């Protein structure tokens, strides 16, 4: 009997402790500002305490200052398991008012759980291009309602260090315009003892991945969308095969950084280029590895840029690959304060908040009203003067877009495990997966 009483007491104590712990873990943001509407945001960028977080804190303060009745509870979630957390919230039917999504397929999966924003954006819709709005509409269909407000337009391009070009006897103000001049520049840089292309392949071969996306823009141009309908394909396309051969040639001729296999792209390779350890870099038009970081590291007038490499087999020239919405904010259906949540999102996407966002993080804002010149970086004007061609990667299924393509690139170009033809077969398989997805 004594044992039984002790056991029951133990179970009781355990239950009590558990319930106290469970209650204690609940958010208590309202306690800080009684009477105000608390808007909770989840995102995967806020955890970047040195890069993005200071900008977000500044914007949050600005929004709260302009909207005294709103308190922002900004929560940075881990990048690696972000969508697992979001799914858990969706399953529970409860969570933050605002959630950050990557544009494209990752956002479309949540269309049923995010609200239609058309009525909110109507007064200022013209500030952002329809190229971005249609990408942020449910299922990526322009005819559907908008479910996400884009915070960035993202993409890829090639940056170069003008001082190193000059050192190698190249014209620093003339970017390599085609494959011949590109390979000639690489050779001259190599002879001068300069690493032609700073690269990062360890873990994931992002340098190859991003270069391919830039080359594919030149191959398919405005027809890129047709890759998943079957009207266009990788297999049987001579230009795609040539693109793969170009990448292979860059390796075989030693133009890719020989230390690349020991270097992760994020952030080592990026930092290497910003520190002047290489002449060219397949970089990002994003919130890292961008015009601002390289301008600050190498000098604002010392960084050149060209969007892609032109080659005769490709149908198009000088195409700039991009994602109409790299990241953005959506309001969840369970939010009790969608109006206040929208005010917060507007604070990020427009006006002073948007200028802070782009100026401090280096991300490209899709808002056309932003005064680019006031940022003081000539390079950003150079980038934004070009239109974007949609990135093929955003058309794929999650698994292919976020991992398999990189694995095929590694197999073909880093570990030399598969032939170019096998690589093309694997890449075509990703398109077929999307086409055949039920």
């Amino acid at each position, binding site marked *: 009997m004594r044992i039984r009483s002790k*056991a029951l007491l*133990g179970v009781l104590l355990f239950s009590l402790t558990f319930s106290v712990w469970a209650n204690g873990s609940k958010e208590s943001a309202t306690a800080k500002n009684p009477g105000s509407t608390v808007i909770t945001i989840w995102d995967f960028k806020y955890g970047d305490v040195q890069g993005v977080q200071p900008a977000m804190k500044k914007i949050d303060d600005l929004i709260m200052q302009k909207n005294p009745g709103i308190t922002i509870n900004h929560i940075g979630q881990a990048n690696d398991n972000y969508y697992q957390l979001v*799914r858990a919230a969706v*399953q529970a039917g409860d969570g933050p008012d605002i959630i950050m999504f990557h544009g494209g397929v990752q956002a479309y*999966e949540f269309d049923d759980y995010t609200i239609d924003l058309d009525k909110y954006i109507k007064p200022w819709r013209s500030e952002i291009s329809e190229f971005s709005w249609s990408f942020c509409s449910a299922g990526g269909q322009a005819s559907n309602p908008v479910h996400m407000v884009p915070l960035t337009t993202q993409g890829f391009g090639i940056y170069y260090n003008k001082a190193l070009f000059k050192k190698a006897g190249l014209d620093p103000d003339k970017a390599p315009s085609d494959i011949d001049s590109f390979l000639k520049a690489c050779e001259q840089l190599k002879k001068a003892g300069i690493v032609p292309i700073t690269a990062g392949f*360890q873990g994931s071969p992002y340098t190859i991945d991003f270069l391919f996306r830039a080359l594919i823009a030149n191959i398919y141009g405005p027809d890129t969308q047709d890759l998943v309908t079957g009207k266009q394909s990788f297999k049987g396309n001579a230009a795609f095969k040539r693109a793969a051969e170009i990448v292979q040639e860059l390796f075989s001729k030693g133009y890719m950084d020989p230390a690349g*296999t020991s270097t992760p792209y994020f952030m080592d390779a990026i930092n290497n280029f910003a520190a002047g350890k290489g002449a060219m870099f397949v970089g990002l038009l994003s919130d890292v590895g961008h015009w601002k970081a390289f301008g600050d590291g190498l000098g604002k007038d010392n960084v050149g840029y060209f969007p892609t490499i032109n080659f005769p087999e490709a149908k198009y020239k000088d195409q700039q690959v991009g994602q109409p919405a790299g990241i953005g904010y959506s309001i969840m259906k369970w939010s009790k304060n969608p109006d206040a949540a929208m005010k917060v999102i507007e604070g990020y996407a427009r006006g002073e908040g948007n200028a802070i966002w782009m100026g401090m993080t280096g991300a490209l804002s899709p808002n056309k009203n932003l005064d680019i010149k006031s940022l003081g970086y000539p390079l950003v004007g150079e980038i934004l003067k070009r239109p974007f061609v949609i990135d093929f990667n955003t058309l794929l299924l*999650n698994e292919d877009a976020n991992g398999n393509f990189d694995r095929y690139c590694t*197999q073909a170009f880093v570990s030399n*495990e598969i032939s170019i033809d096998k690589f093309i077969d694997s890449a075509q398989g990703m398109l077929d997966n999307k086409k055949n997805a039920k």
Partner: protein
Amino acid sequence: MMKSEAVDSYLLIMPLLLLLAVFILYPVIANIYLSFFKWKGMGRATFTGFDNYQTMFKDQTFWTSIKNTSILLLYIPLGTILPIMISAFLREGLKGWPIFRAIIYLPNILGYVIIGMIFSIVLRKLGPLNGVLTVLGLGNLALDWLNKPDLALNSLGIVYGVWIRLGFGCIFFLAAMSSIDESLYDAAKIDGALWWRTFWNVTVPSIRFSIEFWIVLSCIEILARAFPFIYTFTRGGPGFATFTLEYGIYNAGFIAFNMGYASAWASVLFVFCGIIAFFQVELMRKNINA
């Protein structure tokens, strides 16, 4: 009516049974159930019958993962023999053993994620290992360990299948050897048996149960506990070179968010683990009856 002692016993094991039911039994049943559905990790699941299994058996990645997992299992003999041999030497006494023991046991303190990260740096082409080899004049052995498929998989086998549990293995087998009757060694000495013969005819048979248990444990470690190490070590690469069954479950479940498909993979892993568990139970039963 149940005796009071029996009621007390059930009451005492009830919290454990409850935890087992919630965290082991329910997930296993739910996993098998889910493997017949298409489910994105949220919303409604759609019944698809054996579709996930059919897709899985046609998926080249699945067979690659089975091959990789099987190759890793081949490292178990080395991962067993090595700690037994070291323990057999140590049993006879070694100067400075406490320091040696602390060093050899270090991997168990660090944890898989940290060790995976450390080795992903150590084994880089321009990493410390190749640096040391070059300094020692063994530059031809300085290989690109993590970017050549065979090297990467075998590096994983050596580090995870052998080295990582070496310290624990030594402690485990030393404990087992401490229970061997010393008179057996004395008798072997009188008979003129050399070290190897003593080891083979006295030590090994005396710790047979421990060796069998260790092999079962190693199988489980490789089949079902390698993910955190691989995630930080190679992320399943280069390409799919270190992509195991367990890694495939993560990939299908938490990258592609095809939970039903991931469950089909997990069911295969469950079958493998079930076979090992069966042998383990049989082993224990045999030793109890012996």
